[in-house]
């Protein structure tokens, strides 16, 4: 990661040098202003990207932060004579604060609702600022000491300051990208529940993201006010401001710091030039260009130019054909002693959950001794997955207790449950497809690692334990079904759990793959992990579990040794069917 960081800094230095040259080559102030505006929108795009690109929460309201930043600078100078040199950093602070204030209620929403709610804030602010009488606020001219008030007669100065701001934003975002902050956001974007289950405190990171994003937007909004000299609510809070932030990013490439830079470099000059040339004849041409750009990019390259080009190059070079995982890699382990004498690790006491009148889990109790493998079986819809969700905090039980090593963990966030030492895999494997195997597992390792080196060590150990050594650099999107399952198991193990929940980890595997997976699970068990496993089919579980808990219609209908449970008449009646019994 360090290498790629230096490399991208080098690339940025080249870009900056070329840009400086361009600024000095620009024939007049008009072009110098345009070059400045490109940087302004690139930074605004980076701001949008920091929240929406990395975390996947699409915002239509970034104009809120931008406008508040602009008004902060202008009003402070008008009323208190404060120089923008101080006003702009303050605008960043206001933007961050606005981010947190807006995030506080809005993060309760997801998807569409989040996007729509974000749309409402800048429009509401627009009306409020008009009503407050700030229809048009001009920055007072300072003749005494213009430079102290960020007022230069040479337009190039602004371009250079904007470039410096972009450099700061670039470094900040690259640092975020390559840290656990960025990794956590990526995980949230791909699957918020899985991220939470891997021990990532999703709410906390979302707040960091919106604060960082708001700060960047506030700063650049403040700077924009300085170069435009006049601020009106529609120019800073208007729909086009939010839209432009989104469009330059999506056009250039979402989720990469280069995206907004590329997008702004192409779209802003295009729109400005057309506006200058044709503005009299075709007054709305700028907006049309942005509209066409975004429609085109969604239809042709929905993640933006950067990724499209990268994917093309990548494909030409050929996908990295790492050695495929083979089932025989896994050494089998000898016969298992079904030992249930360990001290009680997890105790579930009378747990219940209803959804709209349907009792999904009904007064279920059982215990999990340390070192055991407990199998929860039952037909589809018996409440197995709901039970798991109750146990590790994805849903809150209506009543009952879950004691993990004596502590009641009901009511804890999934990430907190994970921190206590309970890991889980999901029924549908969801690797982070663009990341390598190693980085996928690394995301799971952060929860139990104080620093990144420890995380790396834990990740490698987990990969070794499941037998994916030698596959670390493969891209997760290209893995086969069993590899994805193993990857997910490794991700859970990397969080150093003492208790592991496995949700239908055998689903979709062929008979030989089932045997391989069983061997891996037994090895994980030998490594000292206690395991609670959900399975739909009985056969594989007979080889694996020390004890069965049978669920049907949300109730526990039987508990016992596998060999006894399959002969239990209630189990046969509820789950196996009488035909099964007739044949057995």
């Amino acid at each position: 990661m360090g290498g790629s960081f230096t490399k991208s800094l080098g690339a940025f230095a080249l870009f900056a040098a070329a840009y400086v040259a361009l600024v000095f080559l620009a024939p007049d102030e008009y072009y110098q202003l345009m070059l400045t505006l490109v940087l302004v929108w690139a930074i605004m795009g980076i701001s949008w990207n920091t929240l929406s690109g990395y975390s996947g929460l699409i915002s239509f309201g970034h104009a809120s932060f931008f406008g508040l930043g602009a008004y902060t600078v202008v009003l402070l100078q008008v009323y208190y004579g404060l120089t923008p040199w101080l006003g702009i950093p303050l605008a960043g602070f206001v933007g961050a604060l606005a981010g947190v204030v807006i995030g506080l209620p809005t993060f309760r929403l997801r998807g569409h609702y989040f996007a729509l709610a974000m749309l409402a804030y800048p429009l509401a602010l627009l009306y409020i600022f008009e009503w407050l009488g700030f229809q048009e606020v001009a920055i007072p001219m300072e003749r005494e000491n213009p430079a102290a008030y960020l007022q230069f007669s040479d337009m190039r100065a602004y371009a250079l300051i904007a470039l410096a701001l972009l450099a700061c934003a670039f470094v900040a975002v690259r640092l975020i990208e390559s840290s656990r902050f960025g990794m956590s956001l990526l995980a949230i974007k791909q699957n918020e529940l899985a991220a939470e289950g891997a021990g990532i405190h999703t709410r906390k990171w979302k707040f960091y993201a919106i604060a960082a994003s708001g700060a960047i937007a506030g700063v650049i909004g403040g700077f924009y006010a300085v170069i435009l000299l006049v601020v009106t609510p529609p120019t800073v809070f208007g729909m086009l401001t939010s839209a432009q932030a989104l469009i330059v990013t999506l056009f250039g490439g979402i989720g990469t710091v280069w995206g907004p830079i590329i997008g702004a470099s192409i779209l802003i000059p295009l729109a400005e030039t057309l506006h200058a040339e044709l503005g009299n004849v075709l007054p709305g041409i700028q907006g049309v260009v942005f509209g066409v750009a975004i429609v085109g990019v969604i239809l042709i390259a929905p993640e933006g130019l950067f990724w499209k080009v990268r994917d093309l190059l990548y494909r030409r070079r050929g996908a990295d054909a790492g050695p495929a995982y083979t089932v025989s890699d896994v050494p089998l382990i000898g016969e298992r002693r079904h030992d249930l004498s360990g001290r009680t690790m997890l105790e579930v006491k009378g747990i219940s959950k209803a959804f709209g009148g349907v009792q999904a889990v009904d007064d279920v109790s059982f215990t999990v001794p340390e070192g055991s493998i407990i199998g929860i079986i039952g037909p589809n819809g018996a409440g197995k997955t709901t039970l798991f969700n109750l146990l590790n905090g994805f849903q809150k039980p209506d009543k009952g207790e879950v004691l993990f090593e004596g502590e009641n963990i009901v009511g804890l966030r999934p990430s907190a449950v994970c921190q206590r030492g309970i890991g889980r895999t999901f029924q549908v494997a969801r690797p982070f497809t663009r990341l390598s195997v190693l980085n996928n597992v690394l995301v799971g390792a952060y929860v139990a690692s104080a620093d990144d080196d420890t995380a790396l060590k834990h990740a490698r150990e987990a990969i070794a334990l499941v037998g994916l050594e030698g596959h670390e650099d493969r891209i997760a999107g290209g893995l086969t079904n069993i590899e994805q399952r193993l990857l997910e198991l490794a991700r859970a193990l990397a969080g150093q759990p003492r208790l592991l929940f496995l949700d239908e980890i055998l689903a979709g595997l062929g008979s030989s793959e089932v045997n391989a997976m069983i061997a891996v699970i037994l090895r994980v068990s030998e490594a000292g992990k206690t395991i609670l496993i959900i399975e739909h089919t009985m056969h594989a579980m007979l080889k694996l579990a020390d004890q069965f808990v049978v669920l049907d219609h949300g109730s526990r209908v039987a508990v016992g040794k596998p060999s006894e449970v399959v002969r239990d008449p209630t189990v046969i009646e509820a789950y196996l069917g009488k035909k099964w019994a007739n044949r057995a």
Partner: protein
Amino acid sequence: MTENMILAENILQALAAGLLVGCLYGLMCTGLGMIFGIMRVINFAQGDLMMLGMYSTWYLFTGFGILAFMGAIIGPIVAAILAGPILFVIGYYMHKFLVAQVTGIRVAGSEGEGHYAQLILTLGIALILQNGGLIVFGSEPVSIRTPLSSSAVILGPFWGDFVEVFVNKARLVGAGVSIAVVIVLFLFVTRTRIGKALQAAADNSEAALYMGIDVDRAYHIAFGIGTAVTAIAGGLVATYYPFQPYVGLEFVIVMYAGVVLGGFGSIIGAFWGGMIIGLVQQMSTLVLPIQLQNTAIFVVFLLVIFLRPQGLFGRNVERV
């Protein structure tokens, strides 16, 4: 006249205006609600399609002889209703060639992929329509003046000759037409074969396909109808409200607030949602300065989103 009477008159005046504007908003919301309810597409361009409806009404009225033929009273209403079919065609093909193309495209690599792509795509379409409108129609506001625009029905007097309520005739007629259109739409959706197919496609598009329903086409039709309904509402609004190419922005939040309020996916709910927004907007003028009229809508909108995201009239049977 006592202060109480003035207050009563103001309240009644605002209530009457709110009910009438509410009917028109209800109709707009019904169009958007249909699109969201059936396809789960958030159509950002709905306001701008409404703007096209307004201009269509205007051109039909002034340019195609409807004024001369039908006169200034019936003419605008006929023109507004005729704007429906025009915008149906636009909506149908806009969905077919643009919106439907991105179903299932991953954008931002996040969950709910296709919907974001559609959301952003319609944002692009909105920008094109707004600014293209500026090029084609110019920025000068236009209005459809009819004799009704400036005349009023007087209700009352109440409380012994003092309290009277003025009701703008153009709004009154608009409200009546709105209710009629919503009823026709409701009957269409619940009683006809195509309507049933649309409902099935909304409920479970995959299963609808297994029934032999051409779900793609059902979606184009639903988008077309939703567009047409909002366009008719726009045409009716145009009879008392001057407009320009950016007018859509003023209404897009009204529409979203109404649809969210009514509960995504319910046609009648969307109508009531729009009605409530109309009432809130008009009643808010009693206590808030007029510039903050729309801010009141935002507040209601945000409150509903936070407190009851399924809407006030959300469906009982929740689909996954």
